[in-house]
């Protein structure tokens, strides 16, 4: 079988798996969305106030914090995974929590990776709001709270783009969650899902394991779903960027 035929066969089987709503594929997709979605929500709740503080407050260590955020935007995921692994293993400082190889550990890893990205892009969007806009709020009788709300309104498309960029990064991430999540799928039937329901297996980690097992069609199916999700997110981000 030529490599082209091999690929075509893989793609056709992949579409079969997707359109038949294969429980294994669905459970992996569900875990991916749940883990990355939760991490992005938590990161957003931290990143937006942090971006505002960095944009408007002048405090000691502000420049150092900005430098830290900028560095954090390029953090190597495997390093984050290793760090959290060391913290969460039974012998580690947070070992008592018994959270290694759980979705919570994966959420923590993605939270650390995504927070600087959302903070950095949001900060740039907030700082891009022209100073006269804020001054006009004051000239029209507004106070600092109204100035912050106005800044959010003016920077909203940039902030939404930041959140979507964070979500995209979380969904595509593999190194950290592989280390702290363990790529675990159940053996036997669990919750009616059937053989191989995912516990900490995500689209990205499943692609690595399915490929190493030689199940290329499943890998391609997972890849198509992953690319579709990221493409949708990027199209949304692009839409908001154009509106901004």
């Amino acid at each position, binding site marked *: 079988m030529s490599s082209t035929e091999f690929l075509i066969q893989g793609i056709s089987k992949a579409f079969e798996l997707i359109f038949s709503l294969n429980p294994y594929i669905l459970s992996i997709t569900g875990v991916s969305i749940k883990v990355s979605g939760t991490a992005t929500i938590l990161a957003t709740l931290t990143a937006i106030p942090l971006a505002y503080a960095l944009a408007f407050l002048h405090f000691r260590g502000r420049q150092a914090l900005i430098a830290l955020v900028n560095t954090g935007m390029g953090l190597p995921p495997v390093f984050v995974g290793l760090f959290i692994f060391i913290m969460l293993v039974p012998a580690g400082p947070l070992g008592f929590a018994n959270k290694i190889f759980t979705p919570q550990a994966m959420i923590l890893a993605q939270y650390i990776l995504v927070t600087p990205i959302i903070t950095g892009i949001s900060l740039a969007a907030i700082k891009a709001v022209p100073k006269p*806009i804020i*001054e*006009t709020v*004051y*000239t*029209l*009788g507004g106070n600092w709270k109204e100035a912050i709300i106005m800044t959010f309104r003016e920077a909203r498309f940039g902030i939404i783009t930041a959140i979507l960029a964070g979500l995209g990064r979380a969904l595509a991430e593999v190194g950290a969650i592989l280390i702290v999540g363990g790529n675990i799928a159940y053996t036997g039937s669990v919750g009616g899902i059937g053989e191989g329901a995912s516990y900490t297996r995500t689209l990205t980690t499943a692609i690595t394991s399915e490929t190493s097992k030689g199940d290329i069609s499943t890998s391609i199916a997972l890849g198509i779903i992953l690319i579709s999700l990221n493409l949708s997110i990027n199209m949304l981000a692009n839409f908001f960027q154009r509106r901004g």
Partner: protein
Amino acid sequence: MEELFRVENVCMAFGKKEVLKNINLGIRRGEIFALIGPSGAGKTTLLRILNLFEKPVCGTLIFNGLDTGKTLRRRMSLLFQTPVVFNASVFENVAYGLKVRGFDKRIIEKKVVEALNTVGLPGMGKEKARMLSGGEAQRMAFARAIVYDPEILLLDEPTSNLDPANVANIEDIIKRIRDERGTTIVIATHNIHQVRRIADRVGVLLNGELIEVNSKDGIFTAPQDERSAAFIRGEMIY
């Protein structure tokens, strides 16, 4: 005319650069007072001090019958040289000052429509503000500045970026606001012809110093300072 506010011995510096020196000035209720002078004379800084944006290094501002602080700022309005446009509809832009003051929705609608009519933008409430031309944007900014009937309107070279038709339009609006609402207006400009057309009194600023305050007729017919006379003649007075 009753004096509405007074600037006493005000000075201002940015770092080591002194931008206003010992300014003494009284503004009368209901007048159009023009602050003239070349670029960099300190006109904008003085307006920003009047709007309580900048705290002067020395001196005081005394407002006759007006409180200080936030309450006072809510009774005035400052219009910038370049129109500032919020990323929203024309209606939302104009309504902003009213919403901040907690006006009722119906009153907001009524006042915004009135303000848009006053500045010659009737029926444009639904337009995206960022799609307006320069002249329209400045008129919208004007509507936003006057919609809540401020007692004091501070204008920082509001027509410097506009074509002659829009300049005439804005000047007409300024005069009508003063005549119909009794608003006290301070306008910073370096356009001598504009001063002749709309001002009641004039103050000449040069290098941060208020070198003369005179009536409109006085400044054109019998200026008290040779440097004012030179500025009126269109000569360089740096």
